[in-house]
């Protein structure tokens, strides 16, 4: 599941949806630039969850994921794993 640069998809779950959901991407981007740096590639952001709750799915290294987990507003950070049909 890792890319060549050691990144894989993590889910950053941030709870209930924002009052202004359209601003979600600004919040998420600011957080990512703080952790990953301004060189953060936009294509690494896989999903922005904003219609019903707040969060995003993004490609990160394990270290970056750990850093994001300490940020205010973050409930949990965990790797996107495979589920199976039952």
């Amino acid at each position: 599941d890792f890319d060549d640069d050691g990144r894989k998809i993590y889910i950053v779950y941030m709870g209930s949806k924002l009052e202004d959901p359209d601003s979600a991407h600004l919040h998420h981007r600011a957080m990512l630039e703080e952790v990953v740096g301004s060189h953060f590639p936009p294509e690494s952001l896989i999903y922005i969850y904003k219609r019903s709750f707040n969060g995003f799915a993004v490609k990160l290294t394990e270290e970056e994921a750990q850093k994001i987990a300490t940020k205010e507003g973050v409930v949990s950070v965990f790797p996107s794993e495979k589920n199976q049909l039952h």
Partner: protein
Amino acid sequence: TTRSWDFLGFPSNVARMNKVESNIIVGVFDTGIWSDHPSFSDKGYGPPPAKWKGICQTAANFTCNKKIIGARVYRSNKTLPPGDIRSPIDTDGHGTHTASTVAGGLMTKASMNGLGLGTARGGVPSARIAVYKVCWSDECADADVLAAFDDAIADGVDIISLSVGGKLPKPYFQHTISIGAFHALKRGILTSNSAGNSGPDPYTTASLSPWLLSVAASTIDRKFVTQVQLGNKNNFQGISVNAFDDLKNQYPLIYGGDVPNKGFNSSSSRFCKENSVNPSLVKGKILVCDAQLSSKKFASMGSPAGVLMQAYRDYAVSYPLPASTLKLEDGSKLKSYMSSTKTPTATIFKSTTIQDASAPFVASFSSRGPNAITHDILKPDVSAPGAEILAAWPLNAPITVAQDSRRLLYNIISGTSMACPHVTAIATYIKTFNPTWSPAAIKSALMTTASPMNPSINDDAEFAYGSGQVNPLKAVKPGLVYDANESDYIEFLCGQGYTTAMLRYITGDNSTCTSSGLVWDLNYPSFALSVTRSQRFINQHFTRTLTNVEKGGSTYKATVSSPQGLLISVNPSTLSFKATGDKKPFALTVQGTVRQPIISGSLTWSDGRHSVRSPIIVYVRS
């Protein structure tokens, strides 16, 4: 479904709120849907309900209609596996099967090449379907499942059916299905989720949060069997779904152990392990294997006329060739026959059905409790038919494996995936009669009216079947419900170690953990208590509140079934309700000595018309 709904006592002519039902939107998170299937005809449907805010991602060979009103596709992984199409179209079959079980129309004379003939139907045939394709041939990724929840809740679905899950238990807010289902319940949307197919070992279900409706798979009384006749005219009744016509002749029998492939010896070829048998030596013969094989393993065998396997099986599977699984005793007799003659032969007939008087019991594959995250919440919640279920199948997907060239409109498959949509449909049916009920109230109705199942044929008792087998007609009029809302779950989460700060993010309000949020006080429709090996004497209080959901007043009396060694008391033991919505609290106390690994009892509230039953389980935690 040609038998399962009738087996549940839910005939096709059941009273329905047709207009309300056609206004209900079921969100199906799965492999997509084959919209051309006649089960999804939109004849007679009006436009989508006004509340619908979703979209239809049209693609080549896929369009929505007035039955399938929405479809979206989720794929976080950039690359697509070969054969998959970035479209809501179902190229697997699973999503078409589950969607038709929930809400497919009535299809008379449905069968799998004659097998399981009858009327295939969804439990709520007038409901609309919104498709969220989250599964592909390689994965159903968490990121995609969560994206589907984000959309489905906002799109306006009324209920979510999710026959998908992970293998390992996860904390509630690191588990995408729990996260999504939590936000769904905040909007009044219940999520029905399959318990998993990792049974029969304990602690195998990963569908664990109390706001999820977790579904185990049970059998129905129609069982597929496949007759095998030897050259000496001896017959054996094997287990499989063999939709191939009778083999016309007797074919030579060949034992896998006698035909090892190059690089293998008989110790692996006897089990017909992948590539272990010599394909040229089995061609045109019936191959005998000392094991049960999956369809995928058949590809390396070449082209035998048929395959006979040996194992104990409690459910039948179909294969890309004529095949049957014999029980071990019959397997021994078969091999004795093979060694007694120089030219042993056999033939395999098309499957037939027999009545299984032992049904329902929980299938061996169905994942079991206890709950690995919160020991004192019983999981799974309920059982429903999930073995040998006939439902719709796409004509663009093979019915077993890619090498299987048969294309059929119906397929018979097994799994908790098949059980889940039965429960989704019944939950939807309940909602059509009781549109204002919360997800917890619907869940309670399903659990407290479930038919008790037999622990003597289900060793794991409630950890296999939960409250029992769902009973649709009783569930629609449960009398009383154990209701719960977001704040009740938040209080429960406080007791699970979640901080006020964390819970405020989740709720978006100023929730505060003011009480200890004891798990035994969550208004759950079942009672579970775990003890450690050293803890033998118990004295545990549970508190609950019942809400009257019938018109007018009624007085309910409690009856307790106390297993040996335990004293279970209820206070008060009589509850008088004056009107609809009236709420009455009570306490249940379990005292005594734990002498067995699992002890089951029950509490039933009855007013003479309704019976509101909850299992009580005390167990030793391992």
